[in-house]
C-alpha cells in the first residue's frame, strides 16, 4: 500500500468511526478528491460532513476551530502546506490559544493537513516545508507523515490529544510504499518513533529525520555502509513537536529535514538532545537541511537547494571523520 492510499484509508476509517468528524478543504470533493487525491471517495460516502470550500484558508481553519469548539472533530486540508501561512492567525492565535487561554482546558479536536516539500518542480511558493514556523506554539502539536507509521494511528492520536495538530505530509511520500525498507536494513520499530537499523549491530551514529526525508537518509545510510563501513540507525518520530526521543547508545547524532536553513526543527531537536544527553555525546548534534534559499523551479536548481542523499552522506562522513 502506498502512503497516499494509507492516508486515504485512515480518513475513511476516521470518518466512519467518529460521526462528529468533518473534513474541509479546497477541491476535496469527488470526483476530484483533492489536489493529491488523498480525500478520494470521502465526499461520496459522507456528503454531509465533507465540505469542499472556497479558496479561504483563514476561514476554513476558523470553521474547523468552530466545529471543534462545538465538540466536533475537524480535519482541514491545505491544498499546499505553503498556504498554511494564510491560516496562521486562526491556528496560532485562536485554535491553539483556546486550549488554555480561557483558564480551563478547552478540548480542540482539529487537524490541519499540509502537503509539503519539493522535488516536483512546483517552485518557490508550492514546495516549502514550513514545519519550523509552527514549532513552539503552546497548545499546538506537530506531526509528520512517515512511511513507517499507519496514519490511522496518527489521526487517532492527534484527535485524542484534543488540541490542534498540524500534519505535514511530504508530497514525495504519496507514491512511496508503506513499511518498505531494503535489506540489510530492517524496520525494527514502528509507531511513535520508528527505527530502521542493521539488526544486531551497534551503530556509529543516529540519524533523526522526519518521514519525508526518510528515503533520502536510507539511501545515504546504504552508501555509507557499503562504501565507508559507517553504520547509522535512523529514527523517524511521528510527532515532531513537542520533541520526545529516546536515544540508543551512541555518541553522535544528526538531524535531517527538508526545511531551509535558519530556526529549524532540527535546532529544537538538538536542544532537547543536548539538554538530556550532553555528557555522552562526543560532539554537538549536526543539523542537515536545505540551503538558505527559496526553492527554485528548474529541476537542476531545485536539486542544488533541497537536502538530498549525497549531502546527508557527505555531512555524516565528514563529521565522523573530522
Amino acid at each position, binding site marked *: 500500500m502506498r502512503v497516499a492510499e494509507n492516508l486515504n484509508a485512515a480518513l475513511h476509517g476516521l470518518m466512519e468511526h467518529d460521526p462528529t468528524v468533518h473534513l474541509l478543504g479546497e477541491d476535496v470533493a469527488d470526483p476530484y478528491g483533492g489536489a493529491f487525491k488523498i480525500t478520494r471517495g470521502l465526499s461520496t460516502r459522507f456528503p454531509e460532513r465533507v465540505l469542499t470550500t472556497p479558496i479561504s484558508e483563514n*476561514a476554513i481553519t*476558523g470553521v474547523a476551530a*468552530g466545529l471543534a*469548539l462545538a*465538540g466536533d472533530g475537524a480535519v482541514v486540508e491545505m491544498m499546499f502546506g505553503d498556504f498554511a501561512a494564510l491560516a496562521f492567525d486562526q491556528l496560532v492565535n*485562536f485554535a491553539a490559544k*483556546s486550549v488554555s487561554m*480561557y*483558564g480551563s482546558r478547552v478540548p480542540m479536536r482539529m487537524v490541519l493537513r499540509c502537503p509539503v516539500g519539493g522535488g516536483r518542480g512546483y517552485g518557490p511558493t508550492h514546495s516549502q516545508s514550513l514545519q519550523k514556523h509552527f514549532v513552539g506554539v503552546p497548545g499546538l502539536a506537530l506531526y509528520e507523515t512517515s512511511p513507517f507509521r499507519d496514519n490511522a494511528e496518527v489521526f487517532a492520536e492527534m484527535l485524542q490529544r484534543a488540541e490542534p495538530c498540524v500534519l505535514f505530509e511530504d508530497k514525495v511520500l504519496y507514491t512511496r510504499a508503506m513499511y518498505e525498507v531494503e535489506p540489510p536494513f530492517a524496520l525494527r520499530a514502528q509507531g511513535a518513533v520508528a527505527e530502521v537499523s542493521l539488526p544486531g549491530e551497534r551503530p556509529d551514529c543516529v540519524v533523526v529525520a522526519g518521514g519525508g526525508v526518510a528515503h533520502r537518509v536510507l539511501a545515504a545510510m546504504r552508501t555509507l555502509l557499503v562504501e565507508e563501513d559507517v553504520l547509522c540507525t535512523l529514527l523517524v518520530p511521528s510527532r515532531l513537536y513537542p520533541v520526545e526521543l529516546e536515544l540508543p547508545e551512541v555518541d553522535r547524532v544528526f538531524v535531517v529535514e527538508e526545511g531551509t536553513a535558519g530556526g529549524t526543527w532540527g535546532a529544537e531537536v538538538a536542544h532537547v538532545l543536548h539538554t538530556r544527553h550532553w555528557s555522552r555525546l562526543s560532539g554537538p548534534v549536526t543539523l542537515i537541511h536545505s540551503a538558505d534559499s527559496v526553492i527554485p523551479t528548474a529541476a537542476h536548481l531545485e536539486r542544488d537547494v533541497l537536502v538530498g542523499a549525497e549531502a546527508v552522506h557527505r555531512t555524516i562522513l565528514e563529521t565522523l571523520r573530522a
Partner: protein
Amino acid sequence: MSVSIWERSHASGQVSAVGPSDDDLTQLLTIRAFERKLLDLFERGMLNGTTHTCLGQEYVPVALEPLLRPADHVFSNHRGHGHYLARHRDPEGLLAEIMGRRGAVCGGVGGSQHIRRDRYLSTGVQGESLPVACGVTLHLKRAEPGALACVYIGDGTFGEGGVYEALNLAALWQLPLLVVVENNGIAQSTPTARNMAGTIAGRAAAFGIAHLRTDSVDLDAIRTLLAPAVAAVRQGRPLVAEFATHRLGPHSKGDDTRGAEEIAAAHAADWYPRYAAADPERFARLDAAARARIDAVAADVTGREPA
C-alpha cells in the same frame, strides 16, 4: 441622517407609555456603572494591562438579549464587557477576571478581551471570530436546528479579509449567523471615512445577505425591528444588523484623539440622558442602585486574593 426611532416616536408623542422595564434599565445602568468603575480603577492605578469600555454602546447587547436564547452562541470582541454582562449578569466574575482575582471567569488568564463562559466567547484579534462562528453554526445547523451564533464586530473590523471569507461561507452554506456591527464611526483613532470605502450595507448586499441598520437607542424599537430578521437567521438566513452608535469614551484609556466637538456629538447621542429625561424618578432610583451594586462588587473584588 436618519432620525432615530426613539426620537421620532417622541416627536410624534408615541413613545411607549411603559418605557424600558426596570430590568432593562437596570442592565443598561449596571453596564454603564461597571465601565465607569473600570476607568476609575485605572486612574487609581488599580488595573493592570488595558481595557476597552463600551460606554455609549451599552444598549446594543441589552436590546439583543431577549432575542437570543440560552442555546445561542455569542462571540464578542475587545469591547465586550457589555456583551458579557448582558448575557451573564456577572459583574463579579468579570471584574475578578480583569483584576486577576479569585472568582475570575477564566482564572485571570484571558483578562478583559478573552472571556469564555458556556456559549459566550470573546477574543482580541479583529475579525477572527466570524470564521469560528461559521464553524459553530455549521454544527448548530445540524445538531441543534433553530439555534444561532451572534457575532459582535466593529466598523473597523471590516478591514479584515477573514470577515469576507466568513460572510461568503455564511451565505453559501445558509448558516444561522447574526453579525451585529457596532458602527461607532471610529476604529481606535481612525474615522470610518478614512478606512472604509463603500458601506456595510453594500458589503452585505454583495453576498446576498440581509442587512438592517438602526440608529435608535430605544430597546423596544430595536427589538421590533430585528425580531423577524433574527427569526429568519434561525432558519439559515444570515443577517448583518448594523447599529449606528457612539463611543463616548477613549478607545482604551486616555487615548481619545477626537476633537471636543466630535466627543460632544457622541454625548449628545447618548441613551443615558434621554432615558433619564423620559422617567427621571425611576431612572435616578435604578441608577443609584446599579452604582451601589458596582461599588460593592468593586470593594469586594479588589479585596480578594489573586486568582
